[in-house]
């Protein structure tokens, strides 16, 4: 094969999403360099792995070679690559997010195969031109500079703090890193409400609609907090790092003010505060190697939903086997944010051999696994018996908790809505606010989560709907691009791992 033929085969393999054929065009120690790669990909095995990820990130790939010039050792090319980026939900105007670029490339050949292929192009037009402006009415995370350096392009606001959501990569690249490698998330916005004192556990139990009274030091537990009408405030993970101390690592609502107000008007012997604890999530199967590298003691024995106090990169921290990925991973809760950037950089350094990627929360995976997040002022308006995790509500316990009597009454009267999974027809746009669900020409609920599932290769969603809607029913969804059908299914969409 001459270099011009090799490049034609290379372009065809891209268009066919054939990463095996792509890798086979290279020699065993072939090298691929491109502007968006952090480092050259060397060797057929690495080429197969990494070209699969790039190839799976795009659809409708088309290539066009404009100029091809053969030289003594290879060839030079100028051409165009055009593709849709999968899973972004498209642009605000409905157009797909695209990775269209022109490139120059050079090929060096050896024994009829590609020894080195080097592509140069400008990746800037793929993504947002600049990071959004920040305003001082919201807090910056102590890891903010790290997220800027990692090219974060979209921030949300959560607990009055900027929340890095999207970095300049195709969603599948982040998804693959979570499933196959290791990812680092700035979740400094995940605030802790600390309950300290001899009644800490009792008070926690009173706030929570799951029995928390038997928590022991080193336990973590997911729970729901409700108001007095049984409406979900948020669904925190609770950690018990020390005797008489619990942290509610909570969602997007001021749990500290809520708990402090209740504590002030009651006789619980408990101090409520928000400590200066800004967590990081280190998620993915290779997170264990990173954690073992930076923790003062081995972390292998830490079981799912357990935590311990240790030193991480020289700083006192709680480490837990928890996270928002629905898979294997850890959270690091340093006792102070003073050394935040040093910690961030140490995690990145330890993760380098494992290809660590700084990402936002990987919503595609979370929804596949039925992992959601409820906030009182945003996507709640539902009682705890309507939640995805309604089965955790314990109404038969003897102790009282806020919302218990209301929930008992709801149970007696009959729960009117429930959370269901949906297989949604077609590609889904970005869900920027809840979509109406209709059945037989009347409103029957709302879609609150919707993504492209990479594992199932289809659009999926989570909705709260009338309890009469059953598995297999077909409903209509009104989203930004029209009315589409959806089939009701179970949650989670894919099996939960450890």
């Amino acid at each position, binding site marked *: 094969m001459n270099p011009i033929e090799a490049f034609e085969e290379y372009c065809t393999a891209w268009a066919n999403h054939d990463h095996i054929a792509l890798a086979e065009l290279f020699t065993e120690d072939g090298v691929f*360099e491109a*502007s*968006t790669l952090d480092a050259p990909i060397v060797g057929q095995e690495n080429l197969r792995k990494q070209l699969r990820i790039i190839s799976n990130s795009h659809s409708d790939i088309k290539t066009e070679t404009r*100029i091809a*010039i*053969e*030289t*003594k*050792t290879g*060839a*030079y*090319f*100028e051409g165009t690559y055009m593709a849709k980026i999968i899973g972004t939900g498209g642009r605000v105007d409905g157009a797909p997010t695209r990775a269209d670029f*022109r*490139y*120059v490339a*050079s090929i060096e050949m050896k024994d009829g195969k590609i020894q080195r292929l*080097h592509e*140069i*192009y*400008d*990746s*800037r037009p793929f*993504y947002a*031109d*600049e*990071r959004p402006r920040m305003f001082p009415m919201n807090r910056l995370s102590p890891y903010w500079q790290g997220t800027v350096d990692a*090219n974060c392009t979209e921030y949300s606001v959560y607990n009055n703090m900027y929340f890095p959501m999207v970095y*300049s990569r195709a969603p599948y690249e982040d998804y693959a890193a979570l499933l196959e490698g290791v990812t680092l998330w700035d979740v400094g916005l995940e605030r802790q409400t600390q309950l300290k004192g001899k009644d800490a556990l009792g008070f926690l139990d009173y706030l929570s609609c799951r029995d928390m009274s038997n928590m022991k030091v080193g336990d973590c537990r997911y729970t729901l907090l409700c108001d007095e009408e049984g409406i979900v405030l948020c669904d925190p993970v609770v950690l018990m790092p020390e005797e008489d101390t619990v942290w509610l690592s909570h969602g997007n609502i001021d749990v500290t003010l809520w708990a402090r107000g209740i504590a002030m008007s009651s006789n619980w012997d408990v101090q409520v505060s928000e400590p200066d604890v800004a967590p990081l999530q280190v998620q993915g199967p290779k997170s264990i190697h990173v954690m073992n590298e930076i923790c003062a003691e081995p972390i292998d024995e830490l079981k799912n939903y357990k935590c311990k106090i240790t030193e991480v990169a020289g700083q006192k921290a709680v480490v837990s086997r928890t996270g928002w990925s629905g898979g294997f991973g850890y959270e690091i809760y340093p006792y102070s944010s003073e050394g935040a950037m040093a910690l961030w950089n140490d995690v990145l350094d330890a993760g380098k051999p494992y290809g660590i990627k700084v990402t936002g929360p990987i919503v595609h995976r979370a929804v596949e696994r039925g992992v959601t997040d409820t906030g009182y002022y945003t996507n709640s308006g539902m009682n705890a018996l309507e939640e995805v995790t309604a089965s955790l509500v314990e109404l038969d316990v003897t102790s009282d908790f806020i919302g218990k009597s209301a929930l008992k009454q709801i149970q007696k009267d009959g729960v009117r809505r429930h959370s269901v999974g949906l297989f949604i027809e077609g590609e889904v746009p970005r869900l920027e606010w809840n979509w109406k669900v209709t059945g037989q020409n009347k409103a029957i609920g709302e879609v609150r989560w919707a993504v492209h599932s990479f594992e199932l290769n289809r659009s999926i969603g989570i909705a709260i709907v009338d309890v009469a809607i059953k598995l297999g029913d077909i409903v209509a969804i009104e989203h930004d691009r029209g009315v589409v059908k959806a089939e009701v299914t179970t949650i989670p969409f894919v099996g939960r791992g450890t």
Partner: protein
Amino acid sequence: MTIQIDAYNAYKQSKVYSSPGAALLTYIGAFESLDEKCIATLTGDGVLVEVPLLKPNRLFGYSEIERGHKAAFDSIENTSFCIDDEVAENDDAAIFLGRVKVTRINGNVDLHDVGIVAQLTDDKLSRISVYFNSRNIRRWSDESIL
């Protein structure tokens, strides 16, 4: 003396280039010499010049090409190109791949991969396209940066 400076000097004397590769090398030599007038003369009124780091990054016509490059050169102390292997060329086009080192007047030094294509139509230069991943150095600004 590098081949691009040879080509640049030859062009300044004769105002003609002998091949797409000579035109490309002249552009690089003029760029290294921060000579926007030479670039504008080389490209002239009928030529499209595309440089991701300029604003606008598609320049057409003598005055636009001169002005665009001057805006960039005003921020540069010096610049040098290093060619990977050779300038590949046929009758209609030439392609260069290599690296560019830019020292800006604020002291910042950047070293980046760069590719340049020069294309001829009816034996006259019709396009120069510079390929460069501008993202990492211009996340926050649309102004000319080099």
